């Protein structure tokens, strides 16, 4: 730990260089703007920022994207509380208590609680990232190919089972992503797979085009089909922040503790991102909070719980990303993409080979927390003014960013066609309610999963039991199956409850 603190201090020094400091400042502002605009999701914003990092070195690139990610978990709170417009899905629970509090004539108080929750969640996330990353990485140094395969399988199963919604749809999305990753010349044998005689496909399908097309253009097409209908903001709403007193904060110490735990856990577990963290924290508070029965009426607990938990997930996500090279959410998948584009493979070795970079990123998280809170306190009025921009215009520019971003990676017109194709696929996913995140993660992690699987099979003479007989991989594979079985069990239990409820309802009808 003393070594980590020393490295972190050096990280703060490195962060003071103009390129890193500028990247941090830009990331904070852009992340806030993206979160405020309802048509732009946080992941989409991080994706669209990616092309701007091509010409930068790796550290400011990651600092920029991480700052966007962190401030994006906070920015949407303002529109949620003031105008009942959730900028992000993760901001939906915030409006259940934030908006009623604002309607009761206390919008400044609601924004004050949000700021305190974001500050607490942000500091917690930064501390947890520093504290957990090195032990995680040391543990990961024991890994061989079976363990890597097991960990990736666990990561993918988490995304599938914890992302919310339907398990079959998530599995279909994941399989499509894994299949996209198999296109091109295979690494083990050099065989052409699914190229259909098209030379460009030999290089494979760039995950960047999948991400940008499906998330960016897909969302634009979905919004276009809906005619860019955005709720109008209430011009009379007062935009100021009043911080709660220390005694008020102390009264909510239970809420802070519960939501912190939920946030950290949802961060570390792959797939359970900021949105799940936000919903779960609100649910936990509704069940175990001191004033559980008053949740939804405009009480501070309903604001603190989702905001704190969603911000606290960021650091948790950064730990497996840096220590294992496994992203647990859409945004960290993009950050992994940025690492790979700069030729850096995150993993346990990165703490030896790139400690300066890692601790500069950690230091940037500490500074970003204070930066986003200062922005939220002093600059919220101009930030939410972007809501007045016509959505048709912002969406046109988002679509343009998608094209230019994809073209910039390889200067290839084929990638532009890919963007169109994946944009339409992304739209179809939205239309039929298939989640996009499993496809993107499958596309990024597919080659690593296949490679570690094939290497294990070659090294252990096609003995597939190796994944279950080695202690670490065995435990992780068990967790993988548990993660997949959990939603099935949950569905079965719900079906039984529904059946019982229907039977109970039928009894009085039968005996009037």
């Amino acid at each position, binding site marked *: 730990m003393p070594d980590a603190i020393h490295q972190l201090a050096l990280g703060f020094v490195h962060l003071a260089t103009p390129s890193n400091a500028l990247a941090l400042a830009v990331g904070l502002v852009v992340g806030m703007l993206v979160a405020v605009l309802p048509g732009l999701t946080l992941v989409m914003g991080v994706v669209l920022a990616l*092309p*701007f990092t*091509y*010409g930068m070195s790796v550290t400011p690139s990651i600092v920029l994207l991480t700052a966007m990610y962190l401030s994006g978990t906070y920015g949407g709170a303002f529109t949620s509380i003031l105008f009942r417009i959730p900028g992000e899905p993760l901001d939906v*629970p915030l409006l*259940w208590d934030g908006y009623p509090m604002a309607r009761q004539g206390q919008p400044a108080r609601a924004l004050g609680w949000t700021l305190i929750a974001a500050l607490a969640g942000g500091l917690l996330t930064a501390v947890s990232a520093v504290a957990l990353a090195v032990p995680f990485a040391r543990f990961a140094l024991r890994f061989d190919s079976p363990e890597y395969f097991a960990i990736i399988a666990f990561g993918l199963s988490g995304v599938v089972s*914890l992302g*919310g919604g*339907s398990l*079959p749809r998530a*599995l*279909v999305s994941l*399989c*499509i992503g*894994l*299949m996209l990753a*198999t296109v091109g010349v*295979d690494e*083990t*044998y050099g*065989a*052409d*797979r699914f190229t*259909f005689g098209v030379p460009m496909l030999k290089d494979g399908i760039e995950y960047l085009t999948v991400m940008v097309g499906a998330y960016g*253009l897909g969302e*634009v*097409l979905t919004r*276009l*089909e*809906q*005619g*860019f*209908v955005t709720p109008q903001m209430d011009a009379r709403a007062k935009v100021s922040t009043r911080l709660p007193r220390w005694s008020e904060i102390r009264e909510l110490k239970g809420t802070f503790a519960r939501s912190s735990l939920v946030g950290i856990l949802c961060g570390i577990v792959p797939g359970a991102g900021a949105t*799940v963290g936000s*919903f779960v924290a*609100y*649910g936990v508070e509704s069940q175990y909070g001191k004033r559980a029965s008053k949740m939804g009426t405009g009480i501070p607990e309903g604001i603190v719980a989702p905001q704190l938990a969603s911000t606290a997930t960021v650091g948790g996500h950064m730990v497996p990303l840096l220590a294992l090279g496994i992203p647990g959410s859409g945004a960290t998948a993009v950050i992994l993409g940025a690492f790979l584009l700069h030729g850096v493979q995150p993993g346990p070795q990165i703490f030896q080979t790139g400690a300066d970079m890692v601790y500069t990123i950690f230091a940037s998280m500490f500074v970003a927390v204070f930066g986003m809170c200062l922005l939220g306190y002093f600059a919220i009025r101009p930030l939410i003014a972007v809501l007045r921009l*016509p*959505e*048709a*215009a912002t969406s*046109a520019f988002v*679509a*343009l960013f998608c*094209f*230019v971003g994809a*073209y*910039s990676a390889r*200067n290839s*017109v084929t990638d*532009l066609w890919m963007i*169109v194709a994946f*944009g*339409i696929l992304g739209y179809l996913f939205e239309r039929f309610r*298939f989640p996009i995140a499993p496809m993107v993660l499958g596309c990024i992690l597919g080659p690593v999963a296949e490679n570690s699987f*094939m290497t294990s*099979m*070659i090294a252990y003479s*096609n003995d597939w039991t190796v994944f279950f007989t080695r202690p670490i991989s065995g435990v992780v594979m068990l967790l993988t199956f548990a993660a997949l079985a959990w939603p099935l069990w949950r*569905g079965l239990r719900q079906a039984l409850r529904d059946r019982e409820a229907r039977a109970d309802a039928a009894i009085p009808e039968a005996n009037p």
Partner: protein
Amino acid sequence: MTRLRAAVPYAAVLAVALYLYHATDAFAAMGREGQLSPAFWPRAVLGLLMLVCAWEIARAAWFPRDARAGPVAAARVEEAPGEPPRQPLRLAAGIALTAAYVPAMEALGFFIATAIFLAAFMVIGRYRRPFVVAIASIGGSLAFVFVFMKVVYVSLPLGMGPFRAFSASLLAALGIH
């Protein structure tokens, strides 16, 4: 009818998966003796995909749909705002425009194609203030040319014939060489 409609996406994915499974025959024999072939991994993924699709088609055909929301979101479904009505013609125009933008960029060059794309997209998106549309599309296009070619050093398409000459003179005017 609703059940059949629910099965359509899975049927489409199943059909593509079956075709791709058949296509793995082309490289299935390329593996070394005693080792898994390069078709093993894609076949395993396609197998899982087909299994899930078949299950969902069967479920849609024989069991009532029980679309459930996410784990916690379900509790708040009743509060979700209703979706606005869909406008398929607008969507079709948007898709056609994005598809046309790619060849247009190669033929007309980035600046002209982008200005037209931005203006047309805003109009399709129901934004009808011609002066703002013109300023935003031309100004936005110029800004993209400047940022990406001068700052980020991306070589954007210049177009063909007279459009190429126009792009070259525009770049010269912006001080981009």
